[in-house]
């Protein structure tokens, strides 16, 4: 990627056409699903969904085998007697919580998660959290947020959780010096540790990751606290931080070598780190990332890719594929585009690429079939039907569950896209399948 090219693309934000917006059936997860990675990350928190049997069934279907290990989440299933007013819902919830805390005394933070049915009946979980805190705090801290599918899509559950966490952490600061930089968005522990080492080498201290491994550790913010998003789906969280005086460092997201460099550079610029030092620190990992990615580039170069909406990470993933892997983008679908936060990403996409926001899944499937991409990035409900048509698919949920951020994971990210194409080439009958699809 030569520099003049980069500059010219950056200067033409108008090249991005108006996104397609259609109102029809969405085929996406609700915000509850983010509990699957949140409970792994935040090790002292327990997520209690207040919802229906459907919520419980969704979680166990999404969690797969994890569900058998008594994970740190559960559902308080509302029943007929709760809804018919035969039982007081708040009393019922108190009882469920008391039983749960008795069984799991190790829980430090209990997170009440609102669902579609609890939202529709306007069951006030924030009020419930306040009441439960009066009983169980400080041994068990209780907070609440909504992961309901009528308000949130998949990763937006994490956004609401972090916003609630900020409100709580700032309300109950643990004292100490204010954070200089808050890195916002769930990152796998291995990625967090890599970034922490890089920050140390860059001479940056006072860096706090949100969420960290301990939920109850307070967050101290000062007048100079800056924050940077590590994930593109955190609109409410950013607003919560900004409302408390923190200023956002704008950057593209740390996916691929280019994204990670740009993200770190933005931090360094904000904190006045010498660019010579920056270049020295990132040179080695960036070289390693390039080396790892090079293995997979032949599989992805010139291949056409179609993204169905899933996690809001799609513009960043598409930018990575287009600029670092040389892939062709046919459509980049996202459940929601935060204009400000993804502006940098959209500006780096090739001119004229089709962007879609929201979904009418039937129409989108038709567009996809017409476009006949080499690789379809889509959810698990669509992947096998596409494969049965002789197409090649990559299930998108893996981008939310696999560590893909940072230099050391750039190769893994490329591999996630390349694997279905490699597999298709390996299996006998691959060429015929492709032919059948055309």
């Amino acid at each position, binding site marked *: 990627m030569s520099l003049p090219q980069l500059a010219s693309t950056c200067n033409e934000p108008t090249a991005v056409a108006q996104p397609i917006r259609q109102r029809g059936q969405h*085929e996406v*997860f609700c915000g*509850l699903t983010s509990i699957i990675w949140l409970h792994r990350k935040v090790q002292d928190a327990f997520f209690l969904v207040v919802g*229906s049997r459907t919520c419980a069934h969704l979680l*166990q279907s999404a969690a797969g085998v994890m569900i*058998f290990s008594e994970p740190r989440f559960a559902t308080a299933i509302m029943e007929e007697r*709760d809804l018919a007013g035969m039982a007081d819902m708040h009393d019922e919830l108190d009882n469920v919580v008391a039983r749960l805390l008795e069984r799991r005394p190790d829980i430090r933070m209990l997170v009440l998660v609102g669902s*579609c049915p609890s939202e529709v009946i306007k069951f006030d979980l924030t009020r419930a959290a306040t009441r439960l805190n009066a009983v169980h705090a400080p041994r068990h801290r209780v907070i609440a947020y909504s992961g309901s599918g*009528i308000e949130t899509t998949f990763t937006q559950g994490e956004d609401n959780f972090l916003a609630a966490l900020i409100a709580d952490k700032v309300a109950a600061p643990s004292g100490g010096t204010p954070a200089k930089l808050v890195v916002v968005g769930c990152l796998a522990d291995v990625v967090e540790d890599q970034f922490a080492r890089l920050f140390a080498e860059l001479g940056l201290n006072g860096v706090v990751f949100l969420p960290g491994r301990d939920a109850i550790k307070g967050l101290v913010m000062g007048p100079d606290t800056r924050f940077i998003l590590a994930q593109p789906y955190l609109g409410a969280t950013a607003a919560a931080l900004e409302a408390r005086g923190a200023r956002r460092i704008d950057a593209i997201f740390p996916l691929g070598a280019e994204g990670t460099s740009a993200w770190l550079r933005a931090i360094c610029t904000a904190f006045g780190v010498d660019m010579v030092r920056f270049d020295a620190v990132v040179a080695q990992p960036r070289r390693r990332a390039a080396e790892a990615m090079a293995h997979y580039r032949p599989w992805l170069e010139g291949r056409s890719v179609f993204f169905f909406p899933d996690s809001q990470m799609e513009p960043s993933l598409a930018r990575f594929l287009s600029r670092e892997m040389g892939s062709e983008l046919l459509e980049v679908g996202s459940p929601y585009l935060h204009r400000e936060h993804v502006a940098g990403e959209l500006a780096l996409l090739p001119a004229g690429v089709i962007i879609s926001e929201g979904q009418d899944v039937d129409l989108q499937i038709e567009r996809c079939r017409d476009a006949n991409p080499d690789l379809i990035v889509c959810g*698990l409900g669509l992947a096998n039907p596409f494969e049965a048509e002789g197409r090649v698919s990559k299930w998108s949920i893996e981008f939310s569950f696999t560590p893909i951020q940072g230099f050391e994971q750039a190769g893994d990210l490329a591999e996630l896209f390349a694997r279905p194409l490699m597999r298709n080439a390996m299996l006998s009958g691959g060429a015929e399948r492709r032919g059948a699809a055309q």
Partner: protein
Amino acid sequence: MKLSMWTYEGPPHVGAMRIAASMQGVHYVLHAPQGDTYADLLFTMIERRQSRPPVTYTTFQARDLAGSTADVFKTACRDAVARFAPDALLVGASCTAELLQDDPGGLARTLDVPIPVVPLELPSYQKKENWGAAETFYRMVRAFVGRAPRPENIPANSCNILGPTSLGFRCRDDVTEIVKLLTDEGLDVRVVAPLGATPADLARLPQAAFNIVLYPEIADVTARWLKTAHGMPFTSTVPIGVGATEQFLAEVRALAGLPKRESPRRDRLTWYSRSIDSNYLTNKRVFIFGDATHAIAAARIASEELGFRVCGLGTYMREFARDVRDAAARYGVEALISDDHLEVEAAIVAARPELVLGTQMERHIAKRLRVPCAVISAPTHVQDFPARYSPQMGFEGANVIFDSWVHPLMMGLEEHLLQMFRDDFEFNDGAAASHLHPQAPAVKPAADPAPVAAAIAVASPVGVIATWTLEAERELQKVPFFVRGKARRNTELFAQGKGIHPITVETLYDAKAHFAR
């Protein structure tokens, strides 16, 4: 409000989806928010279904609540009919939409779509998946069969098979097996429903002489209605196991007016179970849990055909609690009726089984307890859709069951024997195999550290600290290692009950006699 970490059954609309997905030419418009679309992946991932299930979700959002979610529903119906051109439309609501009280059935009637519309009322906050599937099948059959009189001169050997569904436990192969079996017996199988049936096929149900109910959880309600409304008798035996299959064939022959016939044994289970190495299976304690049909059938096979001892029997299907209680009484155990897996786990621990037959959840419980296990029932898992032919029903099903229950037990025994031989002077880790180079380094096994204390206190699973005399502890070491744990437990239980302290060699053998079976 009920705390749930895991559920055996999904919500009732997932049951309705299973019926829609089983059939041809049916489309289900489900008034539901976007998150409910997760249910598609049950079909595309667990069953590896090659097409999307025939379901349209309205995916209304919070902003629609202020306006009209009813309009969103009507648009979705019209679009679905235009796009998928089904022969019939199912309409209903999921848990969230049920609270909106939009009345999908009423709305659909105002739409004037050119195909039959079957409205579903599935109370999400009371009922569960299997009930939803049974209710949906019943509504579909009622809608398409109607009350028109049956034709005259129905051949006596004609029958329908009711109950197999998408995402049902081994339904795909059970249907193949049973159709083949019935055809061999001279029966004419007309309609299999809901799996593979069209609405027109449902309309033809009364043209057969009688119905075969393979899965009562799904088809019992429908079969009862067809009996009441159209006088069609139905079978009551589910052909899982050799005895049940023979009983089933006799019942079917009687219904078809065919003469009684001694059918030749066509299975291998009977002989394998009689062959002497199966002596090892005698009185093995088996804990059984699942849906009602498979649990009851498993208990019969375990007890009558394999010579196990049923030490626990239960179901998560409250609707069939009575049947399971009756069965449990036959084996002298109390039935466990529960949909709380923690309660099931506690029951398994208490029953001390040597084999667990259950759902995926019991498989995990057994794994934790290091007890051999086999899966006999839904909820289904990707492993329940094996690539090979693997029915549970009929004679071939009995063969499959023999293998899938006995192999884990044999593997367990093999592992125990290997570990036991490791202590043997010529089979230990240090001794090289005799066919290898004689100069291979031989490490002398470490000598047994001799216990120094006169009595050994052990934190026992019973909960108290049990004290053993040195002699008793030494005697216990002579018990084969794979039953040693049980011998220790039983002895401590016995000692605790009698207030014996410390445990002597005498106590050990008193306990052995006490627990002898």
